[in-house]
């Protein structure tokens, strides 16, 4: 597939991952690699398995077969293909290596913006309150919210909450950042401020795997785009190739046509 694009082992290596919810196959033998510093965007119609795939990468969902490795280490299951889940402690440590930003923000409402960021730093990374506070302030500055450090989530706009959500994820210094339709719950005028933050992280070399419906952003910010349909990877390639109108992939063409019809 994209194996030849450049050398070096993939940071994220998804191989033949399948998953079913009862009789419904949501992932069918999905394979996908993300290299260090790459921004890979997953697009596709709803129900195509994009979000499930993302949630498998940090094991918020289990998968039935196949393998997902980050930096060579199997996620979720113990080695040797035993399908034996890792211990709770092990899983927590693995999840700390991936950052996730959610569609519905999921900020902790009882903690301030800084408190949201500090929780993982103190509990998981073992930093002191003072150190954690410094890191939190640094990242809040990066997302343009230095002045909101002591605000509660309920006192922030949606765009501000999502920027805190991003800061909370990146402050943990994850190897890869997972972005799950992070602008879908925002009012249109707030989308820009969030995407600007993502773009600046990409410029800093943060490795990202994101699911989005923002095609213009996907085109500009991604190294590669993955098109998923019916639980499988239907096409992978550079944005220009995938989003070209003359694509020969029937499903992709239908998806893009429908998308253009509803967005332009």
């Amino acid at each position, binding site marked *: 597939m994209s194996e030849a694009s450049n050398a070096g082992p993939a940071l994220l290596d998804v191989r033949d991952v399948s998953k079913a919810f009862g009789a419904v196959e949501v992932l069918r033998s999905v394979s996908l690699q993300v290299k260090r510093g790459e921004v890979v965007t997953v697009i596709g119609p709803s129900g195509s398995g994009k979000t499930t795939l993302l949630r498998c990468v*940090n094991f*918020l969902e289990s998968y039935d077969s196949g393998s997902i490795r980050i930096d060579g280490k199997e996620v979720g299951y113990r080695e040797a293909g035993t399908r034996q889940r890792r211990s*709770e*402690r092990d899983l*927590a*440590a*693995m*999840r*700390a*290596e*991936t*950052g*996730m930003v*959610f569609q*519905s923000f*999921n*900020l*902790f*409402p*009882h903690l301030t913006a800084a408190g949201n960021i500090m*929780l*993982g730093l103190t*509990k*998981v990374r073992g930093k002191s309150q003072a150190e954690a506070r410094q890191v939190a302030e640094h990242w809040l500055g990066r997302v343009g919210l230095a002045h909101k450090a002591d605000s*509660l*989530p*309920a*006192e922030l706009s949606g765009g501000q909450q999502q920027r805190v959500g991003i800061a*909370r*994820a990146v402050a*943990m210094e994850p190897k890869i950042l997972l972005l799950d339709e992070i602008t879908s719950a925002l009012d249109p005028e707030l989308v820009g401020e969030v995407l600007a933050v993502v773009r600046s992280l990409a410029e800093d070399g943060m490795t990202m795997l994101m699911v989005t419906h923002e095609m213009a952003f996907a085109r500009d910010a991604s190294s590669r785009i993955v098109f998923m349909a019916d639980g499988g990877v239907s096409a992978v390639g550079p944005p220009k190739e995938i989003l070209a109108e003359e694509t020969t992939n029937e499903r992709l063409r239908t998806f893009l046509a429908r998308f253009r019809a509803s967005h332009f």
Partner: protein
Amino acid sequence: MASQILYALPFLAKGFAVTLWVSLLVVTLSLVAGVLLGVGLVYGPAPLRWAVRIFSDTIRGIPILVLMFFVYYGLPAVGLHLPSFWAAVLALTLFKTAQVIEYLRGAVASIPKGQSEAAMAIGLTFRQRLTSVIFPQAFRRFLPPWINGVTDAVKGSALVSLLGITDLMQAINQVIGRTYEAMPLYILGALIYFAVNYALSLASRRLERRFAFIRE
């Protein structure tokens, strides 16, 4: 009349102390047991969940009075003789525990799944997720029904008088037995119960404000 009641005040005060002591025991013991069992009901393995579910449903389906008589008069049949005071405390605690289990379950269930997921995503372990993310939020929803339950416990403690324990209720009845001043003594009793519960609900409102996520 006034002098007779004044004369009885120390006796009533003793009864009031028993009422407070019973209430405190019941509230504290049921809080500890109910929270532990409630966590078992929400997160425990299946057998534990069933056991707690059966316990809670059974206990809540029985009138407290029946439960109390059962513990005091029924359990000796299987060789368990409890002094009346502890039989009453046990019965009231069982009843209250079943309620606390349900308050806790409801409070935890009301926290959106995204909260656990966000906590998992930053690498918190199960225990850390509970103590740092779920419980602080659930506490706020647990508090109002629980305080309601505490006032119920204070009022319900009057039932212990039926096992011959001299709590406030029993003390009042005894003084009425001597003085035949039913009306003023029942009014006095009602005022005392009311004062305790009103103080509790004031404290509750302060606590709720203290733990709100929106500053006022």
